[in-house]
């Protein structure tokens, strides 16, 4: 009995939350494989393996027991990999995951202690290091190649077209099903909305944060449109559905460790992130600026929590 107790660590507190996230990401991975072949699956396997190795390495370094039920690194690995193009090299996958897990998560103290979202950090690092590789996406249903991707046909994503002042022209059916060039796991709008509902029902993500974020982004694109020649609805549709915006809103924004806890703070945080994202999109250097904007907003989440909690406390004590 005692031996049994010694050998079994209790399941980590976040295990259920992270498993739900992984479960929610699975349909996206499946769609990516459907569109691009086996390569996305291989990239994900490599990402998971790298994340686990990093976790194990750090556990040994800190003389702690390797807790296999602490699977937040797997979530970050999956979140990061699904933002890459299917033709991204394996070196990029490994580098991004290593930076995300070691610097983004473990340097700050491990599970639940990080102030910046590790997957966003990994993506930012990889974007800055290899911008030419990151922003060229393969056409769906073409041959991508398992090891050598040089023969794949690449094109620019809709975020690039919006940047250069054009309006993408993607038929609505393709748009909702995700049958257009873009980051591997982020183009499947219908699937993302479905899993968002699932996560909402399981109370894994809040409702006010993504809504505030998306509403702010939509409002800015309506009031200050990037492309003067497009109709408002068209433009908002493409703005919201390009550049991993919806994906970020659902998966990256509500990370419990980086987002504020107070409700009002969450709304303000959502508005702030939306504003920063649109600024990065309009004036920033990279077409997919939402990860950089998220990193910047993360720096303010603690402050927002403090200010809004104080305000709520004062309001409550005044009413008493």
């Amino acid at each position, binding site marked *: 009995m005692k031996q049994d107790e010694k050998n079994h660590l209790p399941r980590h507190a976040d295990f259920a939350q992270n498993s739900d996230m992984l479960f929610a990401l699975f349909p996206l991975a499946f769609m990516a494989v459907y569109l691009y072949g086996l390569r996305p699956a291989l990239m994900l396997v490599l990402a998971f393996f790298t994340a686990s190795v990093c976790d194990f390495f750090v556990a040994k370094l800190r003389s702690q027991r390797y807790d296999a039920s602490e699977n937040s690194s797997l979530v970050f690995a999956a979140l990061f990999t699904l933002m890459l193009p299917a033709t991204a090299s394996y070196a990029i996958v490994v580098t991004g995951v290593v930076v995300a897990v070691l610097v983004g998560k473990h340097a700050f103290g491990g599970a639940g202690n990080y102030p910046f979202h590790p997957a966003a950090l990994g993506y930012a690092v990889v974007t800055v*290091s290899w911008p030419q590789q990151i922003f060229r996406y393969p056409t769906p249903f073409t041959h991508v190649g398992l090891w050598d991707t040089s023969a794949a046909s690449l094109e620019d994503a809709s975020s690039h077209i919006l940047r250069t002042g054009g309006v993408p022209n993607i038929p609505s059916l393709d748009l909702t099903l995700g049958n257009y060039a873009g980051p591997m796991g982020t183009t499947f709008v219908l699937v993302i909305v479905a899993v968002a509902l699932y996560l909402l029902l399981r109370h894994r993500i809040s409702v006010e944060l993504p809504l505030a974020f998306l509403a702010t982004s939509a409002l800015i694109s309506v009031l200050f449109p990037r492309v003067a020649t497009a109709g408002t609805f068209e433009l908002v549709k493409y703005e919201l559905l390009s550049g991993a915006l919806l994906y970020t809103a659902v998966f990256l924004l509500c990370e419990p460790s980086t987002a504020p806890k107070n409700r009002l703070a969450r709304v303000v945080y959502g508005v702030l992130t939306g504003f920063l994202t649109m600024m990065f999109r309009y004036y920033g250097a990279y077409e997919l600026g939402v990860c950089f904007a998220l990193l910047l907003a993360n720096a303010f989440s603690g402050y927002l929590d403090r200010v809004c909690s104080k305000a709520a406390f004062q309001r409550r004590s005044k009413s008493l």
Partner: protein
Amino acid sequence: MKQENSNYLINNMDRLMQRDRIFLNNPVFMQGLGLAPIVVAATTLHNALVLGLGVLLLLTPTRLVAAMVCRGRWPRFRGVAYALTAAVVYIGVWFAENALFGVGMQTVGLYLPLLVVEPIILKRYERTQPERLGTAVRKGLVTTFGFLLALLLVAALRELLGAGTLLGYAVASRPVLPMAQLVSGGFILVGVLAAAWRWMRNLIKRVVSMEANLK
């Protein structure tokens, strides 16, 4: 390790660690001095040589001359005295750098003249006690070598990781992490190295105390 050696080390461990300005109490990795040039400008070994020569020629003379000038009369103006001394010594440093590197000095941009007010050069002004000349020279040299060690290490790593070259000669086939040569990469790399330095320091402490306790 002999008994009395390890005992001496244990009893004076903290003081010794404080005084060792090259390894155990490295001015860059442990005290956080001299970060501006290292994080931004030390992206290649060539830049490191330019900056290193600058610090080598600037730090000790500044400290010595300023120690001679500030004999404790107006403690509030020590900062001004140290900064002006550094700026005057810099004139000589500039000519030396120009002779050795010529136009190559431009690669570090404003980080060479910036050394004049860098905390690693000026730090001593914060303590109002006048410094003995011998101490000034000794501490100046030791701090210089600590800084040079950190500078060359970081620059070599950044050039290797970021461009796959060393002093311009290709070493790796492909850069491992191009971000290492950017400012943000510099910050993160120096942060990680500082943590590694602390880890090694703790390891040494543990080893020495184990040696002392074994006997």
